C-alpha cells in the first residue's frame, strides 16, 4: 500500500490566501506513508485467526461458540466524536460544508500559517454545556484548552487544540431501553467525560494509490468527544448506546449525527476476560464503522475473535492495536500496532484564555433544553403505548413530531401510532422518503382516523384515502364527499 503524499493544496482565489503561497512550488511531492510494517502484521493475524471464525458456520460450531462465549465476558468502552454543526469552525470564521471542493473553506488560522492565532467560537461551549447536561454530567465551571501534539499531514499546526485534564463535563450517564428483539431491558451506561476539541483535515488517497493529497476543509471543525465508562458487554448494547448519543445530538440540535459523513464517529475499545475475573483483558480498538449495525457486527466479531484466542490458549496474541472493520469482508483487521502509549506531550494552550462558565449561563441553557428522548419515551409510555412502539417512534425526530402533531389534532393515540409505524412507515421505506416529504399532513391523518373511528368510513376505504393523500394530498372531507364514500349505515 504505497500511499503517497502530495503538496497538492490549491486555494480558492477568493480566499484570504493568495495563490502565490502555493504556486511558488508547483512540483508535486511524493512520499509513502508509514504503513510498510503494518502490512506484514495484517497478513499474519488476518490469515490464521479471522478465517477460522468466518468458516465457523455449521450449527454445531455455532453452539460451541455460544458455549465458549458464555465462559467469557466482554468489556466495551466507546469514544464518540460528535461534529458540531456550528456556522463557523471552532477557532476561525470559516464555514464547514460537507462535500465542498477541497481546500475551499480554509484560512490562515485553520491552515496553521505562521503567526495565526485561534479565536474561540463560543457556540462550541453552548453545545458542550447542552450535551453535558443532557448526559447528566457535572460541568467544570472553569476549564481550559490544551495542546495534543503529534505530526501528521492533516494536522496543520502539529498539535490539536483539545482538553486534557479538565474536560468541560464529566461523570454522567445515559439511560436507555434495549429493543425487545434483543431481549429488551433497561440499561444505564456511565459517561466518563465530554470535552471540546478541533477536527483534523482529511487525506485523500489517489485512485492509483500512489500518492495522497491533503484537504483542510475539515481542519478546525468543532468536535465534542464523549468517552463512556467500559460499561457495555455486547455489540447490541454498544450500538444502542451510540444510537442514543445520536438521538441526543439530534434532539439538542448540536449536530446532524450523520455516521456516513463522519459527523458521528465511534471508536470502540473491546477486551475479553474469563467470567468472574476482575481485571480487564488487553483492549483492542476498532474503528471505521459507519452504521450502528456495522458497530454491532464488528464488536460481536471482535469478541468472538478474542474469545477464540483465549480458548486456544493464545490469549497472548491479543495485543494493543487498532483494528479496522472491513464491511466487505465482515471482519476486523489490524491497522496499526501500538508501540507503548503515544506521548502527546499535552500542555495548556497559551493562546486561549480559560473557559469560565457562570451559574446563570448554565441555568439558562438548562431551561432551554428540549424534551430529551428518555423523557419523551416515558411520556409516550404514559399515553398507553408499548415500549416497542415508543422506541420506534422516538427514534426519528420527524416521525415523532408527525405523531405528536396528529395526536394534538385529535387523533387516537394507538391508531395514530399504528398507522404511522405500519402503512406510512412501509410506504416511506419503499419510496425511500422521509416523513416530511409526503403530502399527507398530521391534520388529515387525524381527520381520517376520526372518520374511521366515528364509523363514517370503513377501515379499508380509510386506507385507500391514506395512500392517495400520501401521494397527492388533499382533504379527507373533500374526498369523502366527492367520491360519496360515506359508509352505508
Amino acid at each position, binding site marked *: 500500500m504505497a500511499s503517497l503524499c502530495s503538496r497538492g493544496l490549491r486555494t480558492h482565489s477568493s480566499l484570504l490566501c493568495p495563490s502565490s503561497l502555493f504556486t511558488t512550488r508547483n512540483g508535486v511531492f511524493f512520499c509513502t506513508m508509514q504503513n510498510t510494517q503494518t502490512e506484514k502484521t495484517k497478513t499474519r493475524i488476518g490469515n490464521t485467526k479471522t478465517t477460522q471464525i468466518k468458516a465457523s458456520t455449521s450449527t454445531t460450531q455455532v453452539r460451541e461458540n455460544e458455549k465458549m462465549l458464555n465462559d467469557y465476558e466482554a468489556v466495551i468502552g466507546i469514544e464518540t466524536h460528535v461534529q458540531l454543526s456550528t456556522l463557523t469552525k471552532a477557532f476561525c470564521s470559516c464555514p464547514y460544508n460537507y462535500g465542498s471542493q477541497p481546500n475551499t473553506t480554509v484560512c490562515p488560522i485553520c491552515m496553521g500559517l*505562521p503567526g495565526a492565532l485561534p479565536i474561540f467560537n463560543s457556540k462550541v461551549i453552548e453545545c458542550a454545556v447542552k450535551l453535558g447536561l443532557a448526559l447528566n454530567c457535572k460541568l467544570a465551571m472553569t476549564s481550559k484548552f490544551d495542546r495534543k501534539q503529534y*505530526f501528521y499531514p492533516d494536522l496543520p499546526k502539529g498539535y490539536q487544540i483539545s482538553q486534557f485534564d479538565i474536560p468541560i463535563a464529566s461523570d454522567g450517564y445515559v439511560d436507555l431501553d434495549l429493543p425487545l428483539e434483543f431481549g429488551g431491558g433497561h440499561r444505564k451506561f456511565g459517561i466518563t467525560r465530554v470535552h471540546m476539541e478541533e477536527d483534523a483535515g482529511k487525506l485523500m488517497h489517489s485512485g492509483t494509490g500512489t500518492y495522497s493529497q491533503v484537504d483542510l476543509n475539515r481542519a478546525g471543525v468543532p468536535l465534542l468527544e464523549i468517552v463512556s465508562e467500559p460499561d457495555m458487554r455486547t455489540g447490541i448494547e454498544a450500538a444502542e448506546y451510540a444510537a442514543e448519543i445520536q438521538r441526543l445530538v439530534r434532539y439538542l440540535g448540536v449536530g446532524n449525527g450523520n455516521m456516513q459523513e463522519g459527523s458521528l464517529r465511534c471508536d470502540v475499545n473491546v477486551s475479553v476476560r474469563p467470567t468472574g475475573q476482575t481485571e480487564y483483558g488487553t483492549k483492542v480498538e476498532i474503528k471505521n464503522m459507519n452504521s450502528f449495525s456495522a458497530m454491532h457486527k464488528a464488536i460481536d466479531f471482535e469478541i468472538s475473535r478474542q474469545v477464540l484466542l483465549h480458548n486456544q490458549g493464545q490469549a497472548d496474541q491479543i495485543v494493543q492495536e487498532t483494528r479496522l472493520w472491513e464491511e466487505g469482508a465482515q471482519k476486523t483487521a489490524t491497522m496499526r500496532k501500538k508501540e507503548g502509549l503515544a506521548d502527546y506531550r*499535552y500542555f495548556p494552550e497559551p493562546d486561549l484564555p480559560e473557559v469560565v462558565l457562570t451559574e446563570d449561563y448554565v441555568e439558562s441553557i438548562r431551561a432551554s433544553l428540549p424534551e430529551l428522548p428518555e423523557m419523551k419515551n416515558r411520556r409516550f409510555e404514559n399515553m398507553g403505548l408499548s415500549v416497542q412502539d415508543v422506541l420506534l417512534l422516538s427514534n426519528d425526530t420527524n416521525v415523532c413530531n408527525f405523531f405528536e402533531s396528529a395526536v394534538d389534532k385529535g387523533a387516537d393515540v394507538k391508531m395514530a401510532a399504528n398507522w404511522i409505524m405500519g402503512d406510512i412507515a412501509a410506504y416511506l421505506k419503499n419510496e425511500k422518503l422521509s416523513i416530511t416529504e409526503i403530502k399527507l399532513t398530521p391534520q388529515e391523518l387525524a381527520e381520517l382516523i376520526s372518520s374511521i373511528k366515528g364509523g363514517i368510513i370503513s377501515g379499508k376505504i380509510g386506507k385507500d384515502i391514506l395512500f392517495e393523500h400520501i401521494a397527492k394530498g388533499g382533504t379527507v372531507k373533500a374526498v369523502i364527499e366527492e367520491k360519496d364514500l360515506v359508509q352505508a349505515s
Partner: protein
Amino acid sequence: MISAIQNPRIQFLFQCRYQFNFPPKARHFHRSTVLLNSASSSSRVLTEKTLTSTSPPTSEILTIRKSLLSRERKAVEIAEEYLNRLRVTEPTIKSFLHVSENVMKEAEEIDLKIERNEELGVLAGVLIGVKDNICTVDMPSTGGSRILQDYRPAYDATAVKKLKESGAILVGKTNMDEFGMGSTTEASGYQVTANPWDVSRVPGGSSGGSAAAVSARQCVAALGSDTGGSVRQPASFCGVVGMKPTYGRVSRFGLMAYASSLDVIGCFGSSVADTAILLEAISGHDIFDATSSKREVPSFASQFISTELLESKPLKGLRVGIIGETLGDGVDKPVVSTIKAAASHLEELGCTVSEVSLPSFSLGLPAYYILASSESSSNLSRYDGVRYGNQAAAEELNSLHSDSRCNGFGPEVKMRILMGTYALSAGYYDAYYKRAQQIVILPSVLVRTLVQKSFKDALRENDILISPAAPSAAYKMGEKKNDPLAMYAGDIMTVNVNLAGLPALVLPCGFVEGGPAGLPIGLQMIGGQFDEGKLLRVGHIFEQTLQGCRFNPPLVA
C-alpha cells in the same frame, strides 16, 4: 524547592544557574561597594570623550511630521536620505534580510496626499523596519529561518496593519536569530549583523537587525519582538531606546510564535518620544488575539513635558527601586558603575532611589528556558514542510517531516526544540506524565508565580524598578557562539520581566570602554502592568536631562 527534587532533567537548570555565577572566562567580579551617589568616574570620562554634541535626542518622527506639514521637505527627500544611508551602511551592518522596493513609491503617495491637503496618519512618511518574524503581505517573512526561505505571508500582522494605517513606510525586514532563539543575531539562518558601534561586535538579539538599523539610522524606528529580552538587550548593545510592553498590550496576531505566553511585539526608536509614538500606534485590543488586552491605550507621547518647562526636580517623589540582584556577581563592573551613575541622575531629578531585593530573581532564568523551549517545541511543529516553507525530497512521510525540519532549522533551534520536547515528554504512561509534569513543568509555572509575586511586592514599595539591561556591553562576534550557557546567562536581566508579563523600557544611559568610540549601556526601567505611560514619561525626562551623552554610533556620526 527545586533543589529538593532529584531529577536528571533538572540538572540542566543547575548547570545553567551555576554557569551564570561562575562564567567560563576568568574575570574579576566583586560585589560592588560603590555608593549609589558616587557616580563612576571612569564612565563619565568616557562619555565626555565620545561626544560631539550634547543636545538631547529629539523625536525624529515629530521632526519629519513638522517638515512635511510645513512643506519644508518632501516625503521622497526624507525617504531618499534614509535609503542612501541604508545603501552605504548595509554592506557593513547587514541588518536587513529584505529591503522593500516600494519605499519611494509610498513616499510619493504621501507627498500626493500632502498636495491634496488630505489628513496624514501619525507615522506618515516615517520609515520603519519590521523584524522578520512579523508577517507582511508584500515582503517575505522568514523568521530568520531557512525553513521559511522566500515565504510570503497571506496576511499582515495586526501591528503591521496598524503601521500601514498610520501612514508608515515599511523599509524592510530586519535580521534576527532564527525564530527569536538567540541573543546575538548570529543564529540567523542567513547572515550575521554587525553592531554599528563596533562592527566586530554583535548587535545583541534576537531583534539585533532592528536595533542595529535604528542605531545606524537606516530607518527611523523599528518593530522587534521580546520573549526573554530580545528587544531590550539589543537596544542596550546598540545604544537605542527599546520598549517591551505589557503582555497583551500589542496584538501577537501575525507574530511567528516562539513562546506564546511570553512573546510580545516591542519597539525601537532613537528617542523615547519616537518609541512612545510607535508603541501607541500598534497597541490595543485585537479580536484576532484572544490574549490581547481590552485596556484602553493612553496617548503616551502627548503626556511628555517639554524640556524647557521642566522644573529642577521633575521626578520629585518618584520611588525608584534598584534591583540588588542585578548588580552583583556575573555583571561587568563598568556596567554596574554606569547603572549606578544613572541612579544618581534619577536622584538628581528628585527620585528617591533605594535598593530592593527580588529573592526569586535567579530562579527566573532556568524557569524561563524550560517554559520557552517547551512552548517553542510546540509552536515550531507547524513547520513540517507540508503546506509551506522548504520541503525536503523524501520517499515516505516520516522522512518528509524529519528531513524538512533537519535541513530547515539551525542548531540553536534544534537544541531548544529537543529541550522543550524533553521537558514536555511523559515517558510512556499517564501516571509518569503527571509525575513529570509535577516535577518539571509545575516548578517552572510555580517559579513564574513567585517571580510575579516578588515583582508585585517590589512595585508596591516602588513606582519603578531599575537594573542593567544586560550584564555586559556588546561582546565580540563568535565570543559566546560555542558557549550557549554563557549566552543564556546574559538573559538574566530580562527574562524575569517576561515571566511576570510586565512592561520595561531600556534606554541608553552611558558608555563603557570598547570599540572605536566606547560601547553604549542600557538602563532598564520596569513598571507595573500597563504602566508603559509612566515608564515612557520617566524615560523621556531621564533622556532629555542626561548630560554629555549622544548616542550616535561612529558609523553615522
